[in-house]
């Protein structure tokens, strides 16, 4: 960039701001343009320093911020279920998203293949605990629902618990679908990975239900 262009850029308020980098590079090496910019003249170059850097905001601003935080279910960064029940719901929402993706995969698999019983899944050990986990999910979710419905002042069941219970059932269905596909096609790595993911999701749901029950 030429000195002329740099000086025009410095003087005209409608100059293209995206040229700032090139102007900066020029100013770094051009003494004449540095002088033109008059950076070193304290008498004229720093009028803004006289302005206050602290201006009291309107008194009613904090209540607005507080209301916004609460309205958006914003919670603190460290999870504490007893202090921040909204965070439970956020965690559940992220789990639900993962579950939805996996269910979609399982449905696609089921719709494209016919179930045919084949060999067992001896090499895959996670499904060995499936029935135990499923029972735990059911028990935990129902226990939480019962506790919530019996608690004073709580006439309705916590929607988070309902969602957990529903998702546990969906995961069970997805696991069953995936197992059918595996039985038909054999232990294909992708299918086995999907089954493992489903089992892990179900485990997380169980843990989450337990956490919810404790809180």
């Amino acid at each position, binding site marked *: 960039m030429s000195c002329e262009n740099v000086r025009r850029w410095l003087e005209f308020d*409608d100059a293209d701001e995206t040229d700032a980098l090139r102007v900066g590079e020029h*100013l*770094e090496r051009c003494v004449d343009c540095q002088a033109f910019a008059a950076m070193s003249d304290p008498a004229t170059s720093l009028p*803004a320093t006289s302005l206050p850097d602290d201006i009291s905001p309107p008194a009613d601003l*904090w209540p*607005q911020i507080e209301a916004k935080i609460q309205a958006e279910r914003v919670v603190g960064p*460290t999870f504490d279920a007893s202090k921040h029940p909204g965070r439970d719901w956020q965690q559940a929402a992220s789990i639900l998203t993962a579950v939805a993706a996996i269910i979609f995969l399982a449905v696609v698999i089921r719709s494209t293949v016919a179930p045919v019983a084949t060999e067992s899944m001896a090499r895959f050990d996670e499904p060995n605990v499936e029935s135990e986990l499923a029972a735990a999910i059911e028990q935990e979710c129902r226990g939480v629902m019962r506790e919530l419905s019996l608690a004073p002042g709580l006439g309705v069941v916590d929607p988070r618990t309902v969602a957990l219970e529903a998702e546990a059932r969906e995961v069970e269905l997805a696991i069953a679908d995936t197992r059918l596909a595996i039985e038909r096609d054999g232990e294909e790595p992708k299918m086995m990975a999907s089954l493992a993911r489903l089992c892990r999701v179900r485990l997380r749901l169980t843990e989450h239900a337990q956490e919810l029950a404790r809180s």
Partner: protein
Amino acid sequence: MDELIEKARHGDEVAFRSVYEQTSGRVYALCIRMMKDETRAVEMMQDTFVRVWQNLETYRGESAFTTWLHTIAINACLVALRTQRRRREDGMENEELEAMTVPNSTDPVDRIALERAIAALPDGARTVLLLHDIHGYRIDEIAEMTSTRPGTSKAHLHRARKLLREALSR
């Protein structure tokens, strides 16, 4: 302050309010000069402090808390200004500059003239000028806050000061 921030990081809303009370004046000064409009400045304050609350866990203490806070405020303002500029380009009028007043003036005539001259600066130049001359940040800090290179910030500062001097000498 560090103790309050730590408490706020753990979800203590009372501590967060104290953090707000200690820092809001400087953030508001930044927002009102960036936005050139008190209503918009209040909106930016809301956005900034809600974002701060949401993202406190990402603050690692590597920079001063006020630097981190001001970076969030500046970025919120710059995004809003870009949106505002696009709307203006679509034909909407902007009367905010004329209406702008900044409270707490001790020398009303000069200060208002100065505030208006700053408000008339292009966004990039105004941002750097505010951060450097009013809030005392260094060029390298400003470059980091605005995700630009130091040379860019320097150029903006040169330009801001030059335009400001010219505006005040008229």
